[in-house]
């Protein structure tokens, strides 16, 4: 009887669990919104608390009597404006003007492209913790005929593991991808930076995606430091450790031609193509390194491109994938030195 009661309870509670649970993670949705704030000095810091979505911290210097309108990134859209709380530090005031109209989110050609982001570094248990765990295991198994004693030893082992020093936090690198789409003319380029836990985002970025398949809202903290009042600023985006983030924006610099006949983009360490030349249109072929100023190298035997790079690309188009050689485009730009730089161009050779 109790079993059936439990089953009924289980089924009855199911819809409530759905209601209690948080909504979908909103993967691949844009988490970067902008608002305008009217501030009057003196001010040193403004905090925008966005509830579960995170917060934004602006630091700068606004003198007494000075009045300005700040354009700040927030992880919250205008539809949830009720969750916004503004706190000004320094004696002045800060007042919401309004959200800026949402920019066109994901460019159409980027929507179908995959981006796994850099793989977080693997954490290690550490020798001391491993030995402690092994010792606890042996001791507990040795006391298996005295469960009470065994439980005591197990709890002690667990407690010792809690206080055992932790190995240093591994840091993740930045993965950079230049996404190109050529539709007859010169390709349109977008730069995407992906990082783990934290990312320095260009001030002109309009798109920030959370790539990790986490449940629920991922809280994001944006930090804007602006001491000279310049518009050329970057945004620090921080998420819980292990969360993979990707920000995209149109790069300020222009790139050289990247066609079958000539290579003006930069030194490419490894190149793969599909649907280009006489090679089979459905197969990826490796072409090895491609130096500046020379035509596309011939097909050579080799491995397929990384799966995350070629997944979801359109069929029937000429595609070039490449890993940029150190020192090439993307390596020398401002910000953290990337772990690797890639090029993904659709419409190559058409």
């Amino acid at each position, binding site marked *: 009887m*109790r*079993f059936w*009661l*439990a*089953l009924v*309870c*289980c*089924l009855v*509670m*199911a*819809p*409530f*669990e*759905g209601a*209690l*649970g*948080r909504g979908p993670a909103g993967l691949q949705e844009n988490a970067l919104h902008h608002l305008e704030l009217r501030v009057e000095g003196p001010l040193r810091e403004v905090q925008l608390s966005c509830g579960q979505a995170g917060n934004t911290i602006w630091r700068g210097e606004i003198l007494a009597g000075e009045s300005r309108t700040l354009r700040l990134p927030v992880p919250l859209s205008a539809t949830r404006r009720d969750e916004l709380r503004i706190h000004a530090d320094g004696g002045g005031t800060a007042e919401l003007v309004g959200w800026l109209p949402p920019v066109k989110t994901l460019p159409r050609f980027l929507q179908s492209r995959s981006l796994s982001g850099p793989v*977080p570094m*693997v*954490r*290690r*248990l550490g020798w001391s*913790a*491993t030995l*402690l*765990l092994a010792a*606890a*295991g042996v001791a*507990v*198994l040795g*006391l*298996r005929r005295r*469960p*009470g004693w*065994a*439980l*005591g*030893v*197990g*709890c002690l*082992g*667990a407690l010792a*593991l*809690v206080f*055992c020093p*932790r190995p240093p*936090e591994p840091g993740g690198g930045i993965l950079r991808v230049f996404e190109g789409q050529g539709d007859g003319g010169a390709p349109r380029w977008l730069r995407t930076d992906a990082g783990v*836990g934290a990312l320095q985002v260009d001030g002109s970025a309009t798109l920030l995606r959370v790539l*990790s*398949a*986490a*449940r*629920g809202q991922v809280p994001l903290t944006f930090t804007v430091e602006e001491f000279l009042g310049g518009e050329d600023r970057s945004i620090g985006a921080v998420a*819980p*450790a*292990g*969360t993979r983030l990707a920000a995209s924006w149109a790069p300020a610099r222009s790139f050289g031609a990247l066609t079958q006949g000539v290579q003006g983009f930069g030194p490419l360490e490894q190149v793969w193509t599909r649907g280009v030349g006489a090679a089979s249109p459905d197969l990826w072929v490796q072409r090895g390194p491609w130096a500046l100023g020379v035509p596309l190298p011939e097909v050579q035997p080799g491995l397929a491109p990384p799966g995350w790079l070629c997944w979801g690309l359109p069929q029937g188009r000429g595609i070039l994938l490449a890993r940029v050689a150190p020192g090439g485009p993307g390596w020398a730009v401002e910000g953290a030195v990337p772990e690797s730089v890639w090029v993904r161009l659709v419409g190559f050779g058409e």
Partner: protein
Amino acid sequence: MWRLILGFIGSGLLLLVPGPLGALVGEGSRLAGVTLLWLFLAGLPGGRPAPAALVLACALPCLVAAGRLDPGFSLRVETLHLLLGALLIGLLAHGSWGAQNHSQPDRARRYEMAWWLCLILPQALALCWTFGGLQDAPLWLQSWVRLGPFDPFFRAELPTGLRSAPLLTLVPWLLVVWPTGDKG
């Protein structure tokens, strides 16, 4: 005994082996993987289950060690998950031990049905959901799947609060396994 040894071997593999095997349970959710392993072993019907205290004594150090490897979750959330996992493991070990060590066929049968319906079936569905794309299933089915204790364990990351399925899973388990009327 073999359950405990298997538990230690499995936990060791999940904790010490990086790469695909270690990451099998998701990015960094070793705590979830180790909890899942001990839940399986602790509650498995049949055989000669060990007393709940002994199972917990083995599982607790493994859970704490796994918690050290999970990035990005506060001590509060980690502790809550650890306590919840330990509670479920203890409950299942107690149920399995009770069902096997008392000659009450009805109780053993009820335990086995609870095992299949409240644990294994939702868990299998959660697995399909995560890896097979059950997102298109009807909402009531998705909700039921999420009611199982294992759904979060197959997610890439742990949920960030207590408002998740394992807590609710306790309710049917308490009703089924808690020895309110049975001896032992």
